[in-house]
């Protein structure tokens, strides 16, 4: 799978459940600088809705893409400020 953005770092939350994917994504985004992209790899099917909802209500992030591949859900989040 190819993406049109450069991934700065990857967060692996496979096997973890709510609220960990969102909470750990937030913590990791805090370490990024503007424009950097975090790849989040999860197996929690709720993470599709949760990370989408979180990113939509959070001012300093933009959800670029969500990819579902079998039991693995990959999210791409850019820090915007």
């Amino acid at each position: 799978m190819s993406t049109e953005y450069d991934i700065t770092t990857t967060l692996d939350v496979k096997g973890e459940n709510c609220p960990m994917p969102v909470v750990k994504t937030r913590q990791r985004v805090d370490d990024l600088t503007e424009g950097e992209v975090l790849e989040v790899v999860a197996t929690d099917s709720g993470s599709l809705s949760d990370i989408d909802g979180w990113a939509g209500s959070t001012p300093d992030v933009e959800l670029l893409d969500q990819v579902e591949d079998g039991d693995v859900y990959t999210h791409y989040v850019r820090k915007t400020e």
Partner: protein
Amino acid sequence: MSTDTPAGEAADAATLQAQIQDLEERLADVEAEDDESMKMTIVATKGSLDMAYPPLILASTAAAYGWDVVVFHTFWGLDVLHEEKADNLKLSAVGNPNMSVPNALAALPGMDALASRMLRKKIDENGTATIQELIDLSLETGVELQACQMTMELLDYEESDLIDGVTTDVGAATALNHMADADIQLLV
């Protein structure tokens, strides 16, 4: 005809100008209020293993949203902040219609411990965070976990019995002040 004098127009313009200025100031105040981050207050009253989860999951997630979050722990909710008890919260087998054991059997000695062990095993297998992990995460991400002073005294808990980082010496008025300003208030 007489009201259309230049002097009258100037007075009207000045009045309008003042009204516009007043409205602009009030709009700026409203916008400034909107910019303030969301606030959530949760009152956590339960200390059973199942009921300890919802407040901590919501609190840590709200912190990820950048919200200002207070969880006020009172009565058995205080056990969730107790250094020793927090790791050993129990699930009640009696009066729990979701469990397949009849109440007459569930009331037997050791059944609560058995039910708690089973839930802990499921939590572990499912990759669900432990209560201790959620407390650590909440404190790390800026959630204020408050311990009701009245309950502390009622249950004979000392400040040193509580997990580090918990806010003590607070009462109902402190909780109400935060609630009055909060966008979301929950009693669990």
